[in-house]
């Protein structure tokens, strides 16, 4: 479903701040894969997701989604294939617009936006049903401005928006990192529900080792701009946090105590 081939991305090339963020990155996702992504700061996790989403171009390599080469497509055109939830709850929704307006915008992802009404009565009923899945009572506040919602509510709404128009690929960039533990657990629960219901191919970045093990069918660990560890199936299911930390040490050398702390 997603194929990343030999991708290289350098920031501030040719300056003292030069940083090779992605270094010969290769990754192939099969349809229905739910992959959790871990790695220390600067490992290239977010850069990988942004490169796939088209926030910026890559210096070398190719990115294919469902067989389509999207390497040179602008961000808004790739959106046709991709649903996204960001780390910052403010980023995924339009605060000054109503809940139902946000949903209606998302429902038209990848479609031509014409002079037909931006939202229809029939759609509203559909959204009401969809919002019930979130179990946050938002179905009774459909004309409220999104700015009035809490961070957790906004992330849950963004998740629903990302999947309203079924994406070929769902990208979750630490979408629970800015939430309190209880809300984060709730949003993860909703994530699991929505991903399973539509059997979505998903890439989820997380800083939480336990979540990385508990969710999805495959786990990858990034280090220095490439994939250092890739476990799936039974092996992943039986993984413990201890083992994961050991794998990380092996992959990255022994002097990574700082990153270990960050990950635990």
């Amino acid at each position, binding site marked *: 479903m997603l194929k990343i081939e030999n991708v290289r991305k350098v920031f501030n090339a040719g300056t003292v701040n030069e940083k090779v963020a992605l270094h010969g990155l290769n990754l192939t996702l099969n349809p229905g894969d739910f992959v959790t992504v871990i790695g220390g700061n600067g490992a290239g996790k977010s850069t990988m997701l942004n490169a796939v*989403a088209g926030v910026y171009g890559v210096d070398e390599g190719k990115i294919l989604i469902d067989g389509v080469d999207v390497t040179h497509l602008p*961000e*808004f*055109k790739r*959106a*046709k294939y*991709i649903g*996204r939830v*960001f780390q910052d709850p*403010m*980023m*995924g*929704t*339009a*605060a*000054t*617009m109503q809940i139902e*307006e*946000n949903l*209606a*915008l*998302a429902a*038209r*992802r*990848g*479609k031509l*936006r*014409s*002079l*037909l*009404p*931006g*939202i229809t009565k029939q759609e509203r009923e559909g959204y009401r049903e969809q919002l019930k899945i979130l179990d946050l009572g938002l179905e009774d506040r459909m004309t409220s401005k999104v*700015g009035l919602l809490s961070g957790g509510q906004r992330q849950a709404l963004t998740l629903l*928006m*990302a999947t309203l128009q079924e994406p070929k690929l769902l990208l979750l960039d630490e979408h629970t990192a800015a939430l309190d533990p209880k809300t984060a657990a709730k949003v993860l629960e909703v994530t699991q529900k929505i991903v399973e219901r539509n059997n979505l191919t998903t890439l989820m970045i997380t800083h939480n080792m336990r979540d990385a093990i508990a969710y999805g069918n495959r786990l990858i660990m990034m280090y220095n701009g490439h994939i250092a560890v890739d476990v799936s199936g039974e092996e992943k299911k039986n993984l413990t946090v201890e083992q994961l930390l050991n794998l990380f040490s092996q992959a990255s050398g022994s002097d990574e105590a700082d990153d270990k702390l960050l990950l635990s």
Partner: protein
Amino acid sequence: MGSLINALPGAVSQGLIWGIMAIGLYITYKILEVSDLTVDGSFCTGGAVCAMMLVAGYNVWIAMVAAFLVGMLTGWVTSFFHTKLGIPAILSGILTQLGLWSVNLAIMGMKANQALSVKNYDMLVSLRYLQDVAKGARPLWEHPLVTVGLLTVGIVAVLYWFFGTELGASIRATGANSNMARAQGINTNRNIVLGLMLSNGLVALSGALLAQFQGFADINMGRGAIVIGLAAIIIGDVVFSKLFRNFALKLVAVSIGAIIYYVVIQAVISLLNIDSNYLKLISALIVALFLAVPNLRGKVFKGGRKERSHA
């Protein structure tokens, strides 16, 4: 006091005309969240195009449509500087505005102004019509307040419809959160182009109306337009934000804001007997005052803490 009452219908009519410009500015300033300084130039462009078309013998409606279209073109130029060349929006507007000075002079045949005598041309609005209606020489529906009022209602209705469509909603999303908009497959650059074009079209239309109303187009007629537009938007917001929640009513509030602004200016001039050369200074101070209101309100009522809005 007497001079104020005499000047009132004229001031209200002018306010209503400037209100259309302010509604155009609302599209960029409030919906797209872009400060577009093109308006100081495109307002005059609208007046100049309309005047020259009337002089050339075209029908007033055709002249106004032409002013609208040329105004859209000026908006396109600014959006080209901004979205294609990557120049910051404010600077793009300043560049277009500067360039338009020469263009506007060229449109008027390298003259600084073009007279439009009400006797020679069949115009939609004129200060003279206002006096004629008062004397009973013309029917009431030719009163500038009625014509411009109806035109404003029509414009508000069309904008209300447009910003409710799929395309219009995507323009609103572009201004509200461009990251979200792109993630939802919205071509944000194209929407900025559309918004700037629509906005400057309306600004030029307003300039066309003012040229008719005052009986001439002048190279300086748009100077300070952005300040008047901002004043109208902010006055409308400060006065009506609690009352008007609906988008159409918010646009009406902008129009009323422009009227309030003009009446206040007129009152200051006639009651205090100030030299009209100080008009721009007074305008700047009035707008500064209204711009400061939300901030001052927070300081006075929230124990000196500065309130910041989460937009």
